[in-house]
């Protein structure tokens, strides 16, 4: 536990002193700001269903698909490429401690980036002068969804980073995994094949992992423990495989 605290502290410090973090954060806010401004514009031009917050979180997949691979691809792949993983693992530190420290550091940065988008809503409130458009329910639900789903997304990124020493491969792999999870499941559910009666169990399984359905439920204030459990168990499995990934690579290095 002590080693984990030292490692996590080290990872967070390195994030804070690294210029790359601030550049990434700025660019993230620029992209998200454009998206937010676009949403507000559409709300002023015509009547819309739902609230700006709801629509804003509907587009969560854009930053997830691009930011998560970029945040996580370096973590373990770089350590292995440089060989610093070897110096690290020959101190009294275990592989799970290293993987969890990397995971929580990336997760903290992910949450920090998302938290900074809260500024958009407070600016909106400041200038609108009214909280009429700012439904706090979807806002809280949306951020809760980001917090819970981020566990799985970041864990997948860490997993991708654990099985290669090439950052680019890790980044692309993370991107593909996230794309399959977020967009792939949505696409699969529209397949004619699944409408067959014999596929009923598969269909219900795919319905269960619909990320967009989870988001709708969260923003509507429905917090289903099954969904929370899905993200928790999913991230646990991804991290376990990351640990196996690091150790299997040691066996064959």
């Amino acid at each position: 536990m002590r080693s984990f605290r030292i490692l996590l502290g080290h990872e967070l410090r390195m994030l804070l002193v690294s210029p790359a973090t601030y550049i990434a954060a700025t660019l993230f806010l620029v992209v998200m700001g454009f998206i937010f401004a676009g949403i507000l514009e559409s709300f002023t031009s015509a009547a819309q269903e739902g609230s700006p917050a709801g629509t804003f979180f509907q587009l969560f997949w854009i930053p997830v698909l691009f930011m998560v691979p970029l945040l996580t691809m370096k973590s373990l792949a770089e350590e292995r490429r440089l060989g610093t993983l070897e110096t690290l693992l020959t101190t009294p530190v275990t592989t799970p401690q290293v993987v969890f420290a990397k995971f929580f550091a990336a997760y903290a940065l992910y949450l920090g980036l998302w938290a900074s988008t809260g500024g958009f809503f407070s600016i909106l409130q400041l200038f609108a002068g009214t909280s009429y458009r700012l439904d706090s329910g979807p806002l809280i639900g949306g951020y809760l969804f980001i917090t819970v789903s981020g566990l799985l997304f970041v864990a997948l990124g860490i997993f991708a980073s654990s099985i290669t020493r090439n950052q680019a491969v890790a980044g692309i792999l993370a991107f593909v995994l996230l794309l399959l999870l977020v967009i792939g499941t949505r696409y699969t559910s529209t397949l004619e094949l699944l409408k067959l009666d014999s596929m009923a169990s598969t269909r219900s399984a795919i319905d269960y992992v619909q990320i967009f359905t989870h988001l709708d439920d969260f923003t509507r204030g429905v917090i289903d423990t099954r969904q929370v459990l899905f993200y928790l168990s999913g991230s646990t499995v991804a991290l376990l495989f990351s640990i196996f990934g690091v150790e299997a690579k040691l066996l064959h290095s």
Partner: protein
Amino acid sequence: MPAFAPEPATTTPAIEVSDLVKTYAGITAVHRISFTVARGEIIGLLGPNGAGKSTTLRILTGYLPATAGRVTVCGVDVAGHPAEVKNLIGYMPENNPLPDDMRVSEYLYLRGRLKGLTRRRLHPRFDEVVQLCDLGRVRHRIIGNLSKGYRQRIGIADAIIAEPPVIIMDEPTIGLDPHQILAVRDLIAGLRGRMTVLISSHILPEVEATCDRVIIVNQGRVVAAGTPAELRHERLGPGHYELELAGPLAALPSLLATLHPGLALVSAPDAPDADGFASLSLTAPRDAPDLREPLVNALAHDSRFRLRALTRTRHTLEDVFLAATNPKTEGLKV
């Protein structure tokens, strides 16, 4: 001493390797290596590239699992108690990987903390290590901007910072200039007696200068072990003699035969110089004793010869290494 208290210094050897085997996907990198290192010894693990040196060291640190065999460090089994063994070892890997984006002090503090030193113990120890490794001038510099010599010394500082009883360094002087090699050598020699040091290398003069004992490995096997002097004697005998001699050289072989039956001229002597002296080189068989004194006596007492110089050319560890790792040389199979 780290948080984990090792057994009393005299009872167990620092490192004990018996019948170690490591195979990678069908390729045998290490084949039944066995050796023992006593406490406080400085040992050189010598061998050509790909001989299995790094693999052996990695198994010793618990970083890689062995396929078969038993490895203990200060009496602790590496396979059974990897966490405890990591407390007993300071390890510097090959090429000494370091994070380029940290400062020297930050890095050493982090490593010290990870190795279980408390903040209170780390502060004085950090100053000590920085002084020992002569890192004072660069302690606040970014590691990525430092020269290879400094980086190497950071690796050594990292290995010794927690004062482990055993230090393992994989090619500590690779890529250094002669000044830096000398500095690193002094540093290692400074650890003598306090810590057990195992270094791997294929730079022979360095091993000869620093190590108490040498283990030569080739193709995953130990082909020779002993002190450099022992190895020289065992492998190649007392060696060659060079002399400068004036007189009837044709009569020399019969004289040599009376001293030792195996003593012979290596080749036909050169033409004598202006003073009438010719340079000769003689070779003695491996089991022959030192023949310098009998040679001097015999030649001085024989009125036909005048002797101007006699030296024994000593074999270097390089000759031993080449002999031991050459598949054609007899005595390779141990």
